[in-house]
């Protein structure tokens, strides 16, 4: 288990529990009462800390090293039926973007999402979840495939941004994202987008145009990361906490401002503390929203999609 700086009280209690267990075993004594009390205290502490997260702390939780990534969600939600499909048919297979069909309660769904790596080696292979243009083009190819066979699409968003490299520029990162925004608007099948970690800027939005855009409770979604915002506007990295607050990037802020459609609650202590439960909740939300979206004609869905995004923005006349 990894702990974040503000989780220190939780870590200490977990440590105490572990020690009590060891002592009990070694000395063959019954410490169950003490352990139960400590566990109770740990739950309370967790509730307190997680009930009052600052925006910056929430950003930290969204990047928690133990947090589940896209493929973990897809594999659990599809009960192992997920079949990954590769390649953009033009340049290569982008490992930072995964996609394929999976079955969810007997229904075929196209899943697409950015994938972060689970260890150092995988992080490099996955390019830290930062897709190149071919990743966005693979995503679009798979969406079109789903549309052809009238299968709904679920995108899972978790990225620190689209990759800013030389090849990315050569192969038209801007065009690739722009094309997805345009084409996703017109998809005839239901589209649900779920932010499970980081929703950073155009790299997130590039698979983020949906009938329903949902955020897990401990995630963020904005035009820039708090760190980069701090470095540009304050010309120093020291204001990331202030920037995190100013950007109004939490699920509650985003929902309040009408920029997303819903929030999925996480288990207390974050998605990583009870992954099974988190996957169950996400699956339930997908099924619930699909049922609602099934009731609309494809034309109605497209019209609603255009209207929803067209209404975003605040101007004064």
């Amino acid at each position, binding site marked *: 288990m990894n702990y974040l700086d503000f989780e220190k009280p939780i870590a200490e209690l977990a440590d105490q529990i572990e020690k009590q267990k060891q002592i009990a075993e070694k000395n063959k004594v019954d410490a169950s009462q003490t352990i139960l009390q400590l566990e109770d205290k740990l739950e309370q502490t967790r509730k307190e800390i997680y009930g009052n997260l600052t925006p910056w702390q929430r950003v930290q939780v969204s990047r928690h090293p133990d947090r589940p990534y896209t493929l973990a969600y897809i594999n659990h939600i599809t009960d192992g039926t997920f079949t990954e499909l590769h390649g953009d048919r033009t340049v290569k297979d982008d490992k930072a973007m995964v996609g394929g069909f999976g079955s969810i309660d007997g229904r075929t769904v196209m899943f697409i999402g950015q994938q972060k790596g689970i260890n150092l080696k995988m992080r490099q292979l996955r390019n830290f979840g930062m897709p190149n243009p071919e990743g966005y083009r693979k995503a679009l190819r798979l969406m079109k495939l789903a549309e052809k066979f009238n299968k709904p699409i679920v995108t899972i968003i978790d990225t620190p941004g689209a990759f800013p490299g030389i090849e990315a520029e050569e192969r038209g990162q801007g*065009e690739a994202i*722009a094309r997805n925004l345009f084409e996703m608007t017109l998809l005839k099948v239901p589209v649900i987008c779920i932010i499970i970690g980081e929703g950073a800027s155009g790299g997130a939005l590039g698979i983020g145009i949906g009938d329903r855009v949902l955020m897990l409770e401990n995630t963020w979604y904005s035009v820039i990361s708090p760190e980069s915002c701090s470095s540009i506007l304050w010309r120093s990295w020291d204001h990331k906490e202030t920037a995190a607050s100013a950007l*109004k990037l939490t699920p509650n802020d985003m929902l309040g401002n009408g920029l997303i459609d819903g929030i999925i609650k996480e288990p207390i202590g974050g998605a990583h503390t009870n992954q099974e439960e988190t996957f169950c909740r996400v699956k339930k939300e997908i099924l619930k929203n699909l049922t609602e979206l099934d009731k609309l004609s494809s034309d109605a869905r497209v019209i609603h999609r255009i209207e929803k*995004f067209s209404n975003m923005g605040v101007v*004064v006349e």
Partner: protein
Amino acid sequence: MSWFKRIRQGITTTTREKKETPEGLWYKCADCKHIAPAADNEANLWVCIKCGHHQRIGSEDYFSILFDEDEYQELFAKLKSGDPLSFTDTQPYKDRVESSMKKTKLKDAMKVAVGDIDGESVVVACMDFSFIGGSMGSVVGEKIARSIDYCIEHKLPLLIISKSGGARMMEAAYSLMQMAKTSAKLTQLSAAKLPFISLLTDPTTGGVTASFAMLGDLNISEPGALIGFAGPRVVKETIGKELPKGFQTSEFVLEHGFLDKIVERKDLKAFIAKMVRMLAK
């Protein structure tokens, strides 16, 4: 097809007052350092007489270059930025907007006008880099959305002239969603089969490149413009070495297949009118 039909009736045209260039003012080319009288520089459409360097100019300058007799009607001129997040960094966003308005005499980073380009009626939405780095916030998004509605209503082609450092950070996710908004609206213009010409000028980066600027039926650019998704500084920091020469110039972007054509400023007016006519007939 009738979108090229003149819609003169009901449009009151305004003539912009000619910029008074004080005598004795000189212009020094940022590229070759050639010094020329400001009046000559302007007469050459703000393109260096010696090396052809295309200088950054504003929306009114483009309008004067493109519209016949410098006549056009500005649309949605009253739109101003709200401050939906009460954003404050080193200064409140509200103050930043106020001082930008005072300094630039603009209301935001985009002006929209309708008028004739070599006899063809066109809606031109042009960004101003001088207003908070040409950043895209709600006003830019809304102006593009309304321009598209206007084009559909009056069956007119749309020209968007991009010049932007990217998103308006002080509008955070609202700014991000302008990418979604403008792209979604462009699907309607496309469904109406009305031409959309995207002119990317120096510089066009970030969220503007990753939305409407790259979605033209024709994507064109002026010579030597910086065009990219990530800014060159960010790319350089990422790869940790010097960038290749000519990286992210319009010539580079054309070579990699993302521009239809590079058009010199002096040829812009004729090119746009010609393409509008060709697409109509």
